[in-house]
């Protein structure tokens, strides 16, 4: 009896020790990642199956939080960064090279960044409802020349990443004529919301005809709702490239696990799941392996993108041109 | 003896000057026109107003700097003498136990006794809102009885009552004062109240509270300022 008690106690103790020794990988992720509809739970499940570790998401602000915490940050890895912050992030010196072989990438442009690793992408696009618009503008020029009763909703470039991407998109297409382009667009813009959610809500409620969103948005409606009436208007002038990135913290106390996670990001497990997990195009998966709904998407031939240095140089003036034109 | 020595109390635009003494156990009426400073004087005795000059003494003890709750005084205001949301028992119990505890058997017996003395037997569980004005005055007096302090101040608490009812209340005040052997000081602007009830009259007019005069002598040979006041009210 006594020996049995002892055995059980020892068993519990060793189990407890094993628990305590399970290494923890702390991952900072955007808020929507961790909801039951976001990609977080799937990433956690897949990665924990191969790492004998405990992956813990800490949702919320990404770079602001890391910059506030400095080198005392708890984060080992951060996932969900956008290109608008990579320059600031790189200059902080808080991030380490990812060391992942980039040859599997299937992005529409060349990517050689050694610190920030893409995991999915899309493009800015105006999304519309085919039941309300028969013939969408066939080009950006056509959009500018569309009658002023075409109602658009966009996001504010000062508070929203997609809003900023739109401003850079217009800059890339029209260059010095960007402000004139905004002048033509202004009467059609109903409002510029704080974030993407408000805009998209207005669109699904029928308040506007077109919403600034992503080329991948229709995939959600096709796959989750069986609804093929939502489409992205594709413009021959090109669409601005939007990519989401992961990066490893230089000060991580779990360097092996962090490295393992970074390679996992480009693995087929991760890439196969991310399309429907995050409603974006996988960064390293050939098109024939995309889910069916994604294969039906209209995608642009031409992709526009500014490097972080170019963007940093253009950004202030591009936003100011937007502000001037829309304030008139 | 309640001594008010060379006392000066600030009023809205002027000041009230007082220099007088009131012996224990007396009934004193503060008589005078509206705005003369009767209530101001009462407030100064009770400690709600600070004297700018002079001293207040009770039985030789200096009260001038004492806080209102440290003075041997109970006061009835013109209104709001009872908490409307508490029963009479809880209201009266505050006189016995300022910590607000519920009345125990002994306290209940004393409360019931006090209510009987003022003619409110069996009404301990009523709230003030369910009583008439006269009954509310009686309840407040019952509390004064329980507080059992040697100085009782009344700031026209019965002004709103009819003449007959008011006389009844004044009789009750006399009883309460006598049973406590307390000095009772009552503000009134009605000479008839003073004549029928008070032993002494302190006439307050034009910024001065005159020393007390026995009631008979006061009304037998009224001062000129009082005649003017009477003349005014007709």
């Amino acid at each position, binding site marked *: 009896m006594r020996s049995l008690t002892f055995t059980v106690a020892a068993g519990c103790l060793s189990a407890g020790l094993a628990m305590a020794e399970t290494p923890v990988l702390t991952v900072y992720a955007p*808020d929507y990642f*961790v*909801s*039951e*509809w*976001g990609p*977080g739970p799937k990433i956690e499940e897949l990665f924990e199956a191969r790492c004998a570790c405990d992956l813990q998401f*800490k*949702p*919320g*602000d990404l*770079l*602001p939080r890391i*910059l*506030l915490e400095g080198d005392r940050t708890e984060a080992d890895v951060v996932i969900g960064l956008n290109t608008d912050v990579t320059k*600031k992030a790189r200059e902080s010196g808080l991030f380490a090279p990812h060391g992942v072989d980039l040859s599997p990438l299937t992005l529409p442009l060349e990517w050689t960044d050694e610190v920030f690793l893409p995991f999915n992408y899309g493009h800015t696009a105006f999304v519309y409802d085919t039941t309300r618009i028969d013939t969408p503008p066939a080009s950006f020029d056509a959009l500018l020349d569309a009658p002023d009763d075409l109602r658009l909703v966009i996001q504010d470039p*000062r*508070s929203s990443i997609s809003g*900023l991407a739109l401003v850079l998109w217009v800059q890339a297409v029209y260059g010095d004529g960007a402000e004139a382009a905004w002048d033509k667009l202004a009467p059609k813009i*109903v*409002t*510029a*919301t*704080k974030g*993407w*959610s*408000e805009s*998209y*809500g*207005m669109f699904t*409620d*029928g*308040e506007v005809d077109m919403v600034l969103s992503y080329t991948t*948005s229709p995939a*959600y409606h096709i796959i*989750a709702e069986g609804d093929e009436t939502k489409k992205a208007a594709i413009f021959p002038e090109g669409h601005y490239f939007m990519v989401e990135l992961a990066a490893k913290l230089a000060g991580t106390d779990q360097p092996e696990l962090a490295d393992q996670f970074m390679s996992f990001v480009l693995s087929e497990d991760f890439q196969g799941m991310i399309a429907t997990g995050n409603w974006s195009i996988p960064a390293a998966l050939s098109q024939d392996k995309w889910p069916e709904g994604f294969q039906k998407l209209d995608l642009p031939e031409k992709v526009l993108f500014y490097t972080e240095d170019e963007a940093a140089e253009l950004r202030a003036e591009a936003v100011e041109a937007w*502000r001037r034109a*829309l*304030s008139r | 003896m309640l001594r008010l020595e060379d006392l000066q109390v600030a009023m809205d635009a002027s000041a009230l000057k007082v220099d007088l003494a009131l012996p224990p156990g007396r009934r004193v009426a503060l008589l005078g026109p509206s705005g003369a400073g009767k209530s101001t004087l009462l407030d100064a005795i*009770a*400690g*709600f107003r600070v004297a700018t000059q002079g001293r207040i003494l009770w039985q030789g003890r200096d009260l001038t700097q004492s*806080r*209102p*709750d440290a003075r041997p*005084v*109970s*006061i009835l*205001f013109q*209104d*709001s003498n009872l*908490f*409307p*949301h508490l029963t009479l028992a*809880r209201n009266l119990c505050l006189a016995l136990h*300022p*910590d*607000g505890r519920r009345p125990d058997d002994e306290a209940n017996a004393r409360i019931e006794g006090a209510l009987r003395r003022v003619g409110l037997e069996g009404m301990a569980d009523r709230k003030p*809102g369910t009583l008439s004005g006269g009954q509310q005055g009686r309840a407040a007096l019952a509390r004064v009885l329980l*507080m059992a302090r040697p100085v009782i101040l009344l700031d026209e608490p019965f002004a709103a009552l009819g003449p007959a009812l008011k006389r009844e209340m004044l009789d009750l005040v006399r009883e309460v004062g006598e049973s406590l052997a307390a000095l009772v000081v009552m503000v009134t602007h009605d000479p008839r109240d003073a004549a029928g009830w008070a032993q002494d009259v302190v006439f307050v007019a034009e910024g001065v509270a005159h020393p007390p005069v026995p009631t008979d002598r006061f009304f037998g040979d009224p001062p000129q300022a009082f005649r003017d006041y009477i003349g005014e009210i007709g």
Partner: protein
Amino acid sequence: MAARALAVSAALALAFLTLGPVAVVLARAGGFATLGPGDWQAVRFTLWQALLSASFSVVLAVPVAKALARRRFVGRALLVTLLGAPFILPVIVAVMGLIAVFGQAGLVNAGLTALGLPTIDIYGVHGVVLAHVFFNLPLAVRMLFSAWQAVPAEHFRLAASLGLGVQAQWRVIDGPLMVRVLPGAFTVIFVICLTSFAVALTLGGGPRATTVELAIYQAMRFEFDLGRAAALAVLQLALALAAGLVALRVSGQSGFGAGRDREVPRWDGQGALPRLWDGAWILLAALFLLVPLLTAVMRGVPGLLLLGPDTLRAAGHSLMVALGSTALCMAWALPLASRRGELLALPAIAISPLVLGTGLFLIVRPFMNPFDMALPVTGLVNALMALPFALRILRPEAETVVRDYGRLRTTLRMTPLAWLRLVWLPRLRRPMGFAAGLTAALAMGDLGVIALFADPDRTTLPLQVYRLMGSYQMEAAAGAALLLLMLSLSLFWLFDRGGRVNAAT
């Protein structure tokens, strides 16, 4: 003396929590950054829209509150409760509801089109003001309504027996009441509107409607320019304090004498015209406030079926936070229910939530893991943000109690505890119920500082709404928002009702 010590420590805690975070952010930034011309333009717009919003809210509240105070009709109590709902609605839900009514494809325009009339456009300064009035009119109405109810019946009886006309009654009763209540109500609403952000952006129609809070957001999240964020936050605080000081000067202290706790029967406004007038105002207010609410409910009903376990757990967390915030806020408010306390609390709603969150993050971080503190910090911040409203509601009544019974308390030599237990709390039950209900509802709906303190396992319901929207789950989000609305309203109703049932009679 004990009461004074309590008031001082409550005030110190308040000052530490409002000014501390700004100071910490400032220290971290190494000083203020200078503001650009765009920032000053944002300041001008912010002031202008806040001024308009607060003015319209209080001016329109007068006839509505007066009508509600002097009319008896079936469903009046329910209407009074429901009219409070917009104030506690999550911003995004309310904005969607307003768009569904006043937007291009909204009910109003559908009606106008059907009648062959030109349509209206909600987007612009007028849209921002409309939304702010929608949020804050109920608050102003409730404040006035409570004040009218606190007028002793004797005053109306006197007015009736004197046969006072409309103008005379206005001078004698209503006018002084306005002077007492309106400046405070105006200030609170003005200050709320100072920190407006998402409403101004969505309905403002573009960068013309740039507010200071947007500039702070931009500085904080996009440019990591803490110096600029701190400078803007201090500016916002200064504006709020200036407004508060002006309001304190304008509003007199005069109140009404102690009533006798009787139901207030009214004799005024018995003619056909006054009845029609009051009826019209009640109807208009009900339509304006309840129709957008109703659309939010309709949108949410199908989504209720999509609520997952995550959302239900989030609802549980939010309830916990709301109840904790309410208890804290009440304990905090009672010792501060004075003019000085109210002024001191004003910064709590004027301080940018972003700067507050960042400051708290910097303060907490050296000692504790911010993630573990998510719910406690949210509860604390919600209590802090609700404090000015609680004080606005409690202060006039608290002062009345002191004025009416302070001398009786002294002469009875009541102990502080006896005063608190037997007089203070029972006499303040009605406003406390209202204040607690408001706090609970606000704490249910407020996002607070969660962006830096998020805990994946302890999400609150409003955050869940945003997460669902961010994952294309618009319908589920509407359902979760409806759940949030129902819970907020239930809490509000329970507390408010609890304060009124058998209150101090």
